[in-house]
């Protein structure tokens, strides 16, 4: 707005708002193409929600995202992240499902290993490879979608038509009966699909968890099969190419961001931390740069926002620059997070009785059954925390001792469900909920409570504040069929361009969405370059 006085006079081809991993990837691609690029990050360090932080003296942890499962192999290789310092402390990490009463099973690739006969029936073990193989085929068919700019509907552009045809061909190519199966299960809930395939509650619970992780869905919510396919699409085909699978970077997720930052800097991008954008500068109905809270102005031909869509359009740009119908669609986006993060500083390595040693280097799921998960979800519908939440647990210090003092350990858990809005309020619920989670952990790892030196719970309002994400949703906006692909975040901004000329989006609120992938940043950079050419 013209009312804001600006001082200083730096000028770039592109300015990127926010140095999250997508913003950094976007900056790196733009700089490699010869653009002058400036990244402005409000926090004191780059990374956004892919960041490693000290949460207790000497104890560091991936503060939001804590595993790499969907990193775009193209970004990984294009930007030479290994050369820029990224190394993986663990790859192809196994998933262990805990029942909470001693039973467990381990999922690796296409096999289930039951640690007790009671954990999983022989029939389910035999049925699992076919089930996993089927979903992975679907996922591979959908994977190319993630790396491409979504097409628009009803245009004359041959690019849009080609993209739609390509998607149709990918699905058709599966063959008649698998195609029919994909279309059948796509809108189903994971609860029904898993009941069709298995009978063992522990296996069902573990498989259902990935369908609802980081979403506003329970296992019985329609569309939860779709979110699982989406997660698999991001993971399967790509992971093998960079050798990752489910992986843990050395130094935590922040190491991914640092490598991306180095790649961007090596290509010539300038990265400024501690620089908070107050608003996007608009001149002659196009984005002309940004104004920082210090009053400093940075001019640019293209402004690319890594911030979430609501922050970008409603706070940084301002509704008066946009059409009312568009603003209404943006304001209706579902952006409230439902996942919390628990960090524990432990005096010693936690012991989960009965588990083989390698299990602790993987991820542990506490979702004993689909009903357990659905019950946990029920509370969230009425603005309560789960009575017995589901947990995705990692002990990152098993693979990477550098995160804690010698001999000490860190436990990092994603906790569902923890709604953004609680009737009782987070200030009164925080301690009770933390104690409840530690109780659950104690039931799986007796003696753990005694070793807890410090605990930190980041609920969605904390994630909102720490990472400047509206609603504290780590995918920026909920992942669901109606907020995906061609309509993510909203029609009119789903091709990384926005209604305001010169303004682009590059964050998790765009296709292909959240998770540490970097694909949104890369796709956005391609759009910026295409526009200028």
């Amino acid at each position: 707005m013209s009312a804001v006085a600006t001082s200083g006079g730096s000028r770039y081809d592109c300015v990127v708002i926010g140095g999250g991993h997508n913003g950094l990837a976007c900056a790196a691609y733009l700089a490699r193409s010869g653009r002058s690029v400036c990244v402005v990050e409000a926090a004191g360090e780059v990374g956004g929600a892919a960041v490693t932080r000290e949460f207790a003296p000497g104890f560091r942890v991936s503060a939001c995202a804590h595993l790499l499962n969907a990193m775009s192999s193209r970004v990984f290789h294009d930007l030479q992240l290994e050369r820029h310092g990224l190394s993986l402390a663990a790859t192809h990490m196994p998933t262990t499902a805990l029942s909470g009463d001693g039973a467990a099973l381990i999922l690796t690739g296409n096999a289930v290993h039951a640690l007790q006969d009671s954990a999983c029936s022989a029939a389910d073990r035999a049925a699992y490879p076919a089930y996993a193989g089927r979903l992975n085929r679907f996922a591979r068919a959908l994977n190319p979608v993630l790396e491409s700019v979504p097409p628009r509907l009803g245009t004359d552009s041959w690019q849009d038509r080609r993209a739609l045809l390509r998607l149709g061909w990918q699905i058709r190519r599966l063959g008649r009966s698998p195609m029919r199966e994909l279309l059948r299960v796509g809108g189903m809930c994971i609860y029904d699909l898993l009941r069709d395939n298995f009978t063992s509650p522990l296996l069902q619970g573990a498989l259902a968890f990935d369908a609802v992780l980081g979403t506003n869905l329970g296992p019985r919510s329609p569309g939860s099969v779709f979110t699982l396919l989406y997660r698999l699409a991001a993971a399967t085909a790509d992971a093998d190419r960079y050798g990752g699978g489910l992986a843990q970077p050395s130094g935590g997720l922040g190491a991914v961001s640092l490598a991306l930052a180095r790649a961007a800097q090596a290509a010539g991008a300038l990265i400024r931390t501690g620089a908070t954008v107050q608003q996007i500068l608009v001149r002659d109905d196009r984005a002309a740069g940004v104004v920082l809270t210090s009053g400093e102005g940075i001019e640019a031909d293209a402004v690319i926002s890594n911030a979430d869509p609501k922050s970008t359009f409603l706070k940084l740009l301002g509704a008066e620059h946009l059409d009312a119908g568009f603003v209404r669609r943006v304001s209706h986006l579902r952006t409230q997070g439902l996942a919390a993060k628990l960090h524990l500083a432990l005096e010693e390595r936690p012991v989960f009785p009965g588990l083989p040693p390698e299990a602790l280097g993987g991820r542990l799921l506490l979702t004993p059954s689909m009903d357990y998960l659905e019950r946990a979800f029920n509370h969230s519908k009425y603005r309560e925390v789960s009575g017995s939440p589901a947990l995705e647990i990692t002990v990152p210090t098993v693979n990477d001792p550098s995160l804690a003092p010698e001999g000490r350990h860190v436990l990092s858990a994603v906790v569902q469900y923890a709604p953004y809005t609680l009737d009782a309020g987070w200030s009164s619920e925080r301690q009770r909920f933390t104690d409840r989670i530690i109780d659950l952990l104690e039931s799986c790892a007796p003696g753990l409570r005694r070793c807890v030196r410090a605990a930190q719970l980041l609920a969605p309002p904390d994630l909102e504040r720490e990472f400047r994400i509206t609603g504290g949703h780590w995918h920026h906006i909920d992942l669901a069929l109606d907020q995906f692909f061609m309509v993510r975040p909203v029609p009119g901004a789903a091709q990384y361009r926005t209604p305001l000329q010169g303004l682009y989006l590059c964050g998790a609120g765009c296709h292909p969405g959240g998770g540490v992938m970097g694909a949104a940043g890369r796709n956005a950079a391609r759009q910026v370059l295409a526009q200028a050419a």
Partner: protein
Amino acid sequence: MHFAEPLLKTPFHDRARAESRLDSFVPWSGYTTVDVFTNVEEEYFAIRNATSVYDLTPMVKYRISGPGALAYLNRLVTRDLGKLKVGRVAYCVWCDDAGHTIDDGTVFRLGESEFRLCTAYRQLDWLLASAIGFEGRSAVSIEEVTEEIAALSVQGPTSFAVLRTLGLRGLERLKPFEVASFALHEIGLTISRTGFTGDLGY
């Protein structure tokens, strides 16, 4: 009780009923109003050659105020209201995102950040949708005031002569598309020189 009285009566209802020869009342935006008093031709020639009075109370009226009111209205309508001085009225249209006209109406600037929008149809949904994002220093408040403000349209070449008999001082200085406040028997009147005939009218 709204169910017992599905159509509201305007403050001029009893007076209008007394003048109505045909008892021809029609529903209009939730009110019952006179369609024809005597016959259409007579009324047409009255408005073209003398003066007619038309009960406009059912016209939908919104009070739009607050520090962001001007910026809000400027975003809403296709016209630059920054040029509209206090005490002036402007015809406007507003459109959806595709540029299709939703409705037209008049905007009265009653103060620096005090406006009245008069429309033919109810628009609250679109007005509120357009207000999303106007917060804090650019906050805007929108309220429907149709039932609080009665309105008459006094139109025709002799309309000034008619109104002058009411003793409204200064009315002769009111220019086209100007609005001003007057008092009549201690009742506040807002009079604008606007109308639908393209002729003299208030």
